[in-house]
């Protein structure tokens, strides 16, 4: 094994590391910045905020997104809020507490220094967003309002109705558009990155396809920043947007970037249950609903009475019963597993018994319908529209769905992968959430990475690259471009019988079954047997119509599914190798007597970073040991 990992975590006490690092980091002088070209792939919270800020600093930025406008990136769908340790509620919050909650919530599988930096920066993010005009909720006195969120006991979540992600993204998007107008950023919408180009081992460009014309182009730069989101759509059904995919990070992985903790996938407890096989995606109902909604199922198995016909004493408010101090606000992984457990027990509600109630009748009695409407009006409307049921009158039905992926490309403290010059931000990297992400932390991380971390740390790489510009005419670019063309040709020439969606759905069902809310060695081994066969069938029997030189959505989807078919195997392998339970990774072989995840800190207190070893070859596992100097590893307890 050749690769070793240096996390580049600065020395010194935890709360001084980031300060110290900035003080010691290299700088690129303002007059030199325009000599550097930076490619940013993705325009969500992390990508847009990075592109805008790097452009503002004076670098030449090219930003790519597959949507028709950078404003449509899937960050826009985040509902609930964004955390910051402002302690505006005077309820005992602090930077350390946010750090601790995030580390604990992640079940002690993330890097202390990164998480502490995230907690520190959370303060700056709120300031920045307010100054940009993000219309956060306010108190009558005009100051910012907060609410509490799953997994914590303080009120530190800032929100803009149920559209916090939208408003934060629009803030970043507007900053990006300002830089586009200033010509520091050149925007490439409807353009998908299909490969990473390495020159002498450094990331120096990308191959991209114009999704309207089908034209394949190469782009050279001094450094590449990936902010391409998570891989939740490997499960086919998820709360991700239809277009979300693993292609950019998977291509980078195949070029040498290590993929860390791919088995850490978060299943969100509050989604609208599946209604049929035609379904294209699942819809999330914000976790903030658990502040006022009470989760329950009937005591009796197979109780088919309408919810209001079931008397109070025949209901099991199982979260409140099992976790008296956190109740309905336990972290997502615990809420999800408990929902699965009661449904597996035959007490689920709704079609197929795959659902639990989220009941607002107590909150409506206590606060009045208008307060509840003000807090969650748009969510109740959304629920009504999709299910034809009025949640002010009857409890919502919810069930867990894939929502977020904590795993991602391995990065060091500078957010650079093991491939020099390749930086990875937001959900696309692995760094901050460990084995489970707490609510309202994804937006925080995306913006921390984009607005505040990468603008400082990117200079550590760039400062060494002055005068080392590469030309896109180099053979490395030609070769990568040719590989992309060949692959498209292969996809189009299979001319098989099965549609891309059929393959995607089959893969999704398999990994949901074997590598979903619970996993075990037997199931994972089965999946590892089946996935290569599926992949082989895909390349022989996929049906992609049309050609490559046109707007061709089936071809786009085919390329993404082909990558999911490779990635899924790594995800299952990682889940098999991690022979412990932690956070969202619940191996049924490893649980406490109460059915909670049982970690094995002696053997698995590390980041699993996988190195690509060639097509159909077993990847190499590289371990980054996790050292905890400031927190004590404990069995998580939300009782």
């Amino acid at each position, binding site marked *: 094994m050749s690769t070793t990992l240096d996390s580049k975590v600065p020395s010194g006490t935890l709360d001084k590391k980031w300060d110290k690092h900035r003080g010691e980091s290299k700088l690129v002088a303002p007059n030199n910045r325009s000599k550097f070209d930076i490619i940013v792939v993705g325009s969500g919270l992390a990508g847009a905020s990075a592109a805008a800020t790097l452009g503002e600093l004076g670098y030449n930025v090219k930003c790519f997104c597959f949507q028709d406008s950078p*404003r449509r990136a*899937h960050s826009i769908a985040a509902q609930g809020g964004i955390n910051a340790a402002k302690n505006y509620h005077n309820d005992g919050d602090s930077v350390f507490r946010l750090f601790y909650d995030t580390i604990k919530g992640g079940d002690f599988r993330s890097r202390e220094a990164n998480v502490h930096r995230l907690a520190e920066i959370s303060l700056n993010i709120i300031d920045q967003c*307010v100054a940009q005009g993000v219309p956060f909720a*306010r108190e009558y006195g*005009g100051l910012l309002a907060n609410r509490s969120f799953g997994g914590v006991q303080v009120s530190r979540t800032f929100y803009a109705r149920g*559209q916090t992600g939208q408003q934060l993204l629009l803030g970043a998007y507007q900053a990006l558009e300002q830089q586009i107008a200033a010509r520091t950023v050149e925007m490439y919408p409807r353009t998908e990155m299909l490969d990473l180009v390495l020159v002498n081992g450094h990331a120096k460009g990308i191959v991209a396809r114009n999704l309207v014309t089908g034209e394949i182009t190469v782009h050279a730069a001094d450094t590449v920043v990936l902010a391409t989101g998570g891989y939740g759509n490997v499960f086919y059904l998820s709360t991700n947007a239809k277009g979300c995919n693993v292609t950019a990070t998977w291509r980078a992985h195949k070029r040498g970037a290590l993929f860390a903790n791919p088995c850490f996938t978060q299943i969100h407890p509050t989604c609208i249950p599946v209604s049929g096989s*035609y379904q294209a995606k699942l819809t999330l109902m914000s976790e903030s609903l658990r502040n006022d909604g009470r989760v329950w199922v009937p005591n009796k198995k197979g109780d088919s009475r309408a919810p209001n016909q079931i008397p109070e004493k025949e209901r099991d408010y199982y979260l409140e019963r099992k976790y008296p101090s956190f109740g309905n606000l336990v972290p997502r992984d615990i809420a999800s597993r408990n929902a699965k457990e009661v449904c597996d027990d035959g007490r689920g509600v709704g079609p197929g018994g795959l659902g639990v109630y989220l009941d607002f009748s107590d909150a409506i009695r206590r606060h009045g319908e208008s307060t509840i409407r003000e807090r969650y009006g748009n969510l109740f409307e959304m629920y009504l529209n999709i299910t034809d049921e009025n949640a002010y009158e009857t409890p919502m039905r919810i069930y867990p769905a894939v929502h977020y992926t904590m795993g991602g490309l391995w990065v060091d403290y500078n957010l650079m992968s093991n491939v020099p010059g390749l930086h990875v931000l937001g959900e696309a990297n692995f760094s901050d959430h460990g084995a489970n992400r707490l609510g309202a932390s994804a937006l925080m991380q995306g913006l921390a990475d984009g607005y505040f971390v990468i603008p400082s740390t990117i200079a550590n790489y760039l400062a060494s690259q002055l005068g080392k510009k590469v030309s896109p005419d180099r053979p490395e670019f030609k070769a990568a471009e040719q590989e992309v063309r060949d692959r498209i040709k292969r996809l189009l020439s299979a001319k098989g019988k099965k549609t891309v969606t059929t393959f995607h759905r089959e893969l999704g069902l398999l990994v949901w079954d074997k590598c979903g809310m619970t996993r075990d060695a037997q199931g994972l081994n089965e999946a590892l047997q089946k996935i290569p066969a599926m992949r082989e069938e895909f390349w022989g029997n996929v049906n992609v*119509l049309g050609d490559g030189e046109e*707007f061709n959505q089936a071809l786009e989807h085919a390329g993404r599914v082909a990558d999911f078919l490779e990635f899924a195997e790594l995800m299952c392998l990682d889940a098999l190798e991690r022979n412990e339970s932690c956070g969202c990774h619940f191996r049924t072989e490893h649980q406490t007597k109460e059915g909670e995840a049982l970690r094995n800190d002696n053997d698995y207190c590390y980041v699993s970073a996988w190195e690509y070893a060639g097509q159909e070859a077993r990847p190499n596992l590289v371990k980054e040991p996790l050292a905890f100097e400031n927190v004590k590893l404990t069995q998580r307890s939300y009782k």
Partner: protein
Amino acid sequence: MNFKLKVWRQKDGRSPGSFKDYEAKDIPSQASFLEMLDILNEVLSERGEDPIAFDSDCREGICGMCSLVINGVPHGPGKGTTCQVYMRRFKDGDTIWIEPFHAAAFLPVKDLVVDRGAFDRIIEAGGYIDVRTGSAPEANALPVPKHDADLAMEAAACIGCGACVAACPNSSAMLFVAAKVSHLGLLPQGQAERDSRALHMVRKMDELGFGNCRNHYECEAICPAEVSATFISRLNRDYIVASTKAAVSV
């Protein structure tokens, strides 16, 4: 459920398009409109026919990417976006006409897909508050009256889908521009650039070929984010004030 569809097919932006007939069979009533098209596209692909191109991404009504005109109405029946229309709204056997958003400033791409990049150009012209990253003051240093913040949020809710333009007989983008000018103009942070923002965004809108507002209010009726047309009055006021100031100061 079964439906007869009349779908606009257009190879690309240079070729002429036309309506073609399709049959959507065995569609579950709980399926969304776009899922109905997904099912049809699977059938077409299996038959070796080019699937129908349409835009969508989040499929939960917030990204603003989906953009169909259904039976002459942008985003189809009910409030909300195309992706939030469910087939139970139609009657079994209905004939449904499906077209892209039509407007001079929205260029056709393929079938039901159009290019709404003009909206990005308008935002570029001034739809932002200029704040250098890292230079912001403490967030609670500047109280914002709850009423103003709530009203700003109502305007900021715009999802940039372009239905307002598609619904307007003049293809005006006034509601889109008004939403952004009002969102930022209502907040104390947005005051410094309030005049220039209104001037530049309106000028850009005109330059890009969007029509003028004649107070039809089709935009308000169709807006999936329920952005109120009263924001247009606010835009007009800001624009007049800014133009007057600009004229006087020359």
